[in-house]
């Protein structure tokens, strides 16, 4: 096992922040958020799960796809610049998996989404293992673990005065190549796991499609987009052009994309005015089946990382594990 002293870790992080954008858990007024930090000192070490996942650093809430400059009948288009390098430190395994899941849609499945891919190529994922699972965490139910290093470039595990370090990818190895690592005997103590049951199989989710309970759950749903926006893997977006300040005689616009969610009432409205998903229960069903049936069908992996954010944040306590548990019981 290779280890790094806390002192050296802080020095290294300070150095990283000077070179790249360094993103890390940071305590900001009412909660912990992944935020750009300038120094290791700004990192929230003893804090709960960040309120939002780290997806915003790869798939920002809104971004410019291109700039449009109109002069009379002529139009000139300008692409957005490529992303700058960034390191996300203190990433939790569930959030790293979230990024891995987004990769499958935006990069692994052709055609490549250039905006996402440009950010992804310039991003290194440096994890910090969770020592235990929070009350609403269920990463173990989706095949992850609180100290799962698989989706990281580099993984740190806290051992008190020192941290165990492990590079998982060539890019990760390059990142830590010059660190004063110390070879220590022994193994990293695994995080304490809690098995969470009740999550249905993909087949059971699929079979639940015509279950009458979806309508019942939907009655409680407020049709906000909270669950989708705190989710590490929800990736639906909307695209529109908006005006920019322009010089005289010209009209400048930007083509924007911004987060959107299938929980929104008019999301599925067609041009003719028909809305196949007018009922809130059908929207809730779509979101959950997307996680466990549709997304795997379209891109490969299941799109739930067990972070538990939607369980905690839902204003009316719609609970994925409860809904799923009841469906699983019905299936058996």
């Amino acid at each position, binding site marked *: 096992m290779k280890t790094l002293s806390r002192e050296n870790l802080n020095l290294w992080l300070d150095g990283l922040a000077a070179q790249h954008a360094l993103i890390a858990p940071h305590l*900001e*007024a*009412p*909660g912990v*958020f992944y935020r750009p930090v300038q120094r290791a000192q700004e990192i929230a070490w003893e804090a709960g799960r960040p*309120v*939002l996942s780290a997806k915003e650093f790869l798939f920002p*809430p*809104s971004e410019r796809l291109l700039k449009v400059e109109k002069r009379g009948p002529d139009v000139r288009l300008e692409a957005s610049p490529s992303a700058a390098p960034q390191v996300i430190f203190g990433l939790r395994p569930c959030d790293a998996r979230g990024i891995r899941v987004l990769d499958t849609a935006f990069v692994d499945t052709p055609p490549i989404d250039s905006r996402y891919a440009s950010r992804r190529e310039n991003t290194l994922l440096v994890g910090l293992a969770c020592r235990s699972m929070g*009350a*609403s965490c269920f990463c173990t139910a989706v095949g992850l673990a609180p100290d799962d290093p698989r989706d990281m470039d580099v993984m740190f595990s806290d051992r008190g005065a020192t941290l165990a370090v492990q590079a998982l990818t060539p890019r990760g190895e390059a990142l830590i190549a010059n660190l004063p690592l110390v070879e220590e005997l022994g193994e990293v103590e695994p995080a304490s796991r809690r098995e969470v049951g009740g999550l249905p199989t993909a087949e059971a989710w699929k079979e639940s499609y015509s279950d009458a309970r979806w*309508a*019942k759950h*939907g*009655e*409680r749903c*407020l*049709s*906000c*987009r*909270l669950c*989708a*926006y*705190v989710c590490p893997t929800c990736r639906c977006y*909307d695209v*529109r052009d*908006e005006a920019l300040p322009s010089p005289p005689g010209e009209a400048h616009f930007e083509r*924007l994309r*911004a*987060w959107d*969610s299938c929980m929104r*009432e*008019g999301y599925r409205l067609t041009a003719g005015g028909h*809305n196949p998903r*007018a*009922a*809130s*229960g*059908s929207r809730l069903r779509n979101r959950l089946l997307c996680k466990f049936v549709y997304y795997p069908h379209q891109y490969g992996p299941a799109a739930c990382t067990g972070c538990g954010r939607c*369980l905690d*944040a839902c*204003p*009316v*306590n719609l*609970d994925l*594990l*409860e809904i799923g548990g009841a469906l699983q019981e019905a299936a058996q």
Partner: protein
Amino acid sequence: MSISEAMQSAARDVLASGQVQRVIGYETGPHGRVRPAIIDRPEEAERLVWSADCTHNLTVYLHRALTGENGRASREAVAPPARVAIVVKPCDSRAINVLLAEHQFSREQVFAIGMACEGMRQGAPASAPEATLQARCLRCRERVPVVHDVLLGEPPSALPEALPDEALAHVRDLPPAERAAFWLSQFDRCIRCYACRQACPMCNCPTCLFEQEDALWVGMRIAPSEKRTFHLGRALHLAGRCVGCNECERVCPMGIPIGLLNRHLAETVESLYGHRAGMQPVLSPVTGMLSAEESAP
């Protein structure tokens, strides 16, 4: 009989006798969290609970339930219930008055199960298990719902002193530049998930002004100026209508003190027009004409 049992019994009776087709109340979900419950059958009444955690304002469901929007698939269109029973706290009941004044439904369509209220508990974080009342409840002296068809529980005879709104005073007392910086930093956290709007009984426009496709007012960017316009604009739309249930602030995943905006305007409306939203079923004075003395030159 406990208050929960009395409420279950009231719900069972109105469903069984056919007075209402649906009851909107509270139940306990996973992790002991209290949440809204929507029941259609008398035997489901045993799920209902009443406690100091019943903080949600359920009137947000009234409009949807009575107009049949939402909740039921269009193809399996079920006629909306003719009459709905709803469990209300004093603050929530004022929302019924506002919605009645705005002709969202009629008084006959609502059976209000009023709860004598002693305040709701602060959403107990693991670190502070001892029960403290929510700040809004410490400021509130209303114990009996202004709209109710049946009243459950005993309103206390002696009322504690209502606390002043220190947070509001604090923000008002900041120098303008610091106030601007404070609000920008708060709005900047917003992710435009619209939970505040969706949880609000007064936000029932079919298409929100801030989400029109060709909106002149606000762009689709999830950026500070757009978010500020949304929050200030929404607060204005609630002026004279907001009953202070604070659901918008409670549901906000980002901890934005939205309630401050609403309280500030509620006080402004009260001082300008002597109007407190929802005390009677009358429209907000903000949407009406100037009075005779106001319009005198």
